[in-house]
């Protein structure tokens, strides 16, 4: 089982570029006029089929719409929209066929070759990209206050959001990317962290900085409690049980009114202080103390640096742990659990540490979320959050710290950019709200990126020790965990 399953990918997976090229080569001898006519005919046929399918699928959803009306449901037709959707699919599919799938020289050809070239230069590129991103992240608030003074708040807020997902991705990466344990309930620890801080602040008036380590410890503790019974499960089963645990925690938070406030959540969560100084307008505030003019943006900048520091901490600890025996044991566990046991590694404890440490960082991020929002409710901790974090980890490339950064920026940043597409209402009419398509587009992007690059964006693994030189290891050799 193990051998066949892990070896299949290496033989069947070809880079997109190479595949496209080989297809092109196959087609090359027939570049006569007849052949191109055939190709066009085939493309048309294929596009027509796709359009037909789109019509069938869309009939009851785009073509018809049920709405509440006085006296029951009302159904009305939207043939215009339906026909438009069919036409879009037909044209899109035809264009894809003509220019990519069935073309003599697919458009993707050059791109594929370029991507392969980038892959070869990856270690250097990765290093420079990391440095550039780090410097940009460090200077980010001042970059935006200087160049976008009108919209700096919005951009810094977005940066905080992206940074939170980067931190969550890095935390989950320990569990999924390194230890190979598929966790679909990561949001539970995020929730534990957020509620821990909120409740501690509410009942004991503990500030953010004092509560932060406690929240992390509580989340780690829950990681161990939840992890203990389930960690001998494998792969998909582990995923579904962690999902169930995540939902259980959410439902409990939702229904335990006396403790958590139920669906109303907890509000009035204190903001973090700067060594005891509030970032407010008052006389004992940060601005007054340092004798600078008060500006609400200061609080955003401060929050940004807090999450930046927390994310950096996550990253540094992860990088360190990778080079320690425990980190190597995680990766070994991902590669082959049975071999680990034969070498005297206590696999249960090893998995628990991964779970607990991942949960701890989730808890830190949760506390930060609570203090940033000032208000939390169970609604923020649904399965979709877990799915998004997992998607970021997998799309970035399992185990790759840089990949997670890129995936977070692309997925979270990309979606938030939809809010700025207000001009589209001029094309589609005033009823058009691009924001309502965010999750639809997010889901589509997940599917498309996975189909395009099943192993994620950054796919090489750096060894943790070397005798002479560090050679990066290609993804086709690295196991994804639980594959046996």
């Amino acid at each position: 089982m193990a051998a066949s399953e892990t070896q299949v990918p290496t033989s069947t997976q070809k880079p997109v570029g190479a595949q496209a090229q080989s297809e092109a080569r196959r087609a090359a001898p027939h570049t006569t006029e007849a052949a191109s006519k055939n190709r066009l005919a085939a493309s048309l046929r294929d596009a027509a089929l796709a359009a037909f399918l789109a019509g069938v699928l869309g009939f009851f959803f785009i073509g018809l719409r049920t709405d509440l009306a006085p006296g029951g449901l009302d159904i009305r037709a939207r043939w215009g929209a339906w026909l438009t959707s069919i036409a879009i699919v037909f044209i899109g599919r035809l264009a894809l066929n003509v220019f990519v799938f069935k073309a003599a020289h697919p458009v993707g050809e050059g791109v594929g070759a370029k991507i392969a070239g980038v892959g070869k230069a990856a270690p250097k590129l990765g290093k420079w990209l990391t440095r550039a991103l780090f410097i940009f992240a460090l200077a980010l608030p001042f970059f935006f206050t200087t160049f976008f003074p009108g919209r700096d708040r919005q951009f810094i807020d977005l940066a905080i959001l992206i940074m939170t997902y980067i931190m969550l991705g890095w935390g989950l990466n320990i569990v999924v990317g390194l230890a190979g344990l598929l966790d679909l309930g990561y949001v539970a620890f995020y929730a534990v962290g957020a509620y821990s801080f909120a409740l501690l602040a509410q009942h004991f008036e503990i500030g953010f900085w004092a509560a932060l380590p406690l929240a992390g410890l509580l989340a780690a503790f829950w990681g161990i409690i939840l992890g203990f019974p389930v960690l001998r499960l494998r792969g998909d089963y582990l995923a579904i049980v962690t999902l169930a645990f995540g939902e259980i925690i959410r439902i409990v938070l939702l229904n335990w009114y006396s403790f958590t406030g139920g669906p109303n959540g907890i509000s009035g969560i204190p903001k973090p202080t700067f060594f005891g100084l509030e970032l407010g307008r008052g006389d004992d505030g940060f601005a007054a103390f340092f004798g600078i003019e008060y500006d609400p943006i200061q609080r955003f900048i401060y929050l940004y640096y807090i999450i930046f520091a927390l994310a950096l901490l996550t990253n540094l600890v992860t990088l360190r742990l990778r080079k320690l025996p425990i980190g190597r044991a995680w990766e070994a566990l991902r590669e082959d659990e049975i071999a680990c046991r034969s070498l005297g590694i206590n696999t249960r404890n090893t998995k628990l540490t991964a779970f607990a440490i991942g949960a701890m960082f989730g808890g830190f991020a949760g506390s930060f979320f609570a203090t940033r929002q000032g208000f939390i409710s169970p609604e923020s901790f649904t399965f979709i959050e877990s799915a998004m974090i997992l998607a970021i980890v997998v799309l970035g490339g399992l185990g790759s710290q840089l990949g997670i950064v890129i995936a977070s920026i692309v997925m979270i940043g990309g979606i938030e950019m939809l809010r700025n597409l207000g001009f589209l209402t001029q094309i589609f009419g005033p009823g058009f709200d691009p924001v309502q398509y965010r999750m639809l587009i997010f889901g589509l992007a997940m599917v498309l990126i996975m189909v395009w690059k099943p192993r994620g964006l950054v796919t090489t693994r750096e060894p943790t020790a070397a005798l002479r030189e560090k050679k990066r290891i290609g993804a086709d050799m690295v196991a994804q965990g639980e594959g046996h």
Partner: protein
Amino acid sequence: MEYFIQQLINGLTLGSIYGLIAIGYTMVYGIIGMINFAHGDIFMIGAFISLAVFLILTSVLGFAFLPVVLLIVIIVAMLFTSAWGWTVERVAYRPLRGSFRLAPLITAIGMSIVLQNFVQVTQGARVKPLPPQIRGGVTLIEGSTEAGTIVVQLSYMQIIIIVTTVVLMAAFTLLISRTSLGRAQRACEQDRKMAALLGVDVDRTISLTFVMGAALAAVAGFMFLLLYGVIDFYIGFVAGVKAFTAAVLGGIGSLPGAMLGGLLIGLIEVFWSGYFSVEYKDVAAFSILAIVLIFLPSGLLGRPEVEKV
């Protein structure tokens, strides 16, 4: 006692619905070893299509004879939902066949998000209520206690749901055990490569598995609509997890197991709501999922997995 019997009937009805969805999970897991995360949303799609067809037949075309309406709705919903099932497999899973295990799981989650939000965008986020269509029933027990009269009723709707499920299950079992398609499917479950070498069209078989699963989910969606009278774009998630629990409880890969698991989950949910608390009924289902996986990972009727060293 009367209350108990009434809950038993309600539980069996709900369990039938879960069982029908669970078959889709169990078949797909059996044949390609993945959790088809989007299957719960296929069920939701089925419910929406059923609603639309039902409305067209009754309020637009003015059909009044209910049995014919029900039959047409079921058939149309099965056909159109199957197309969705087929497309999901073709777009999100087939390109990744033979790739590493996490990729199809991620596309499955992605597909689930896509389906939910597609329906939300095209049909709106608000719930769609449908007034009860089938009224009345058979009174089984009528007794009076000091608290008042207690009636145990088996409604016509419950009869329809249970009978439909039994008929579909029987037809389906025959399909799997007697036809060449069923044989091809079982062969692919055992060893996909060998089946391909022996001339089984693996792609087609897997596609048909998704189509069949979707068709059954469509029926489940319609019955859900009739039973609860309210649907929205989000019903697929929770129902999907519960149905998956049912499939695991019965032993994943086993068709009778899926049905049995569905009935058990339905009963547990109804009894939990009836005797303990309605708010935590989902917690009960999720806890059972965890407990079964931890202590009985091969389920009630499944084959135990031996760790190969």
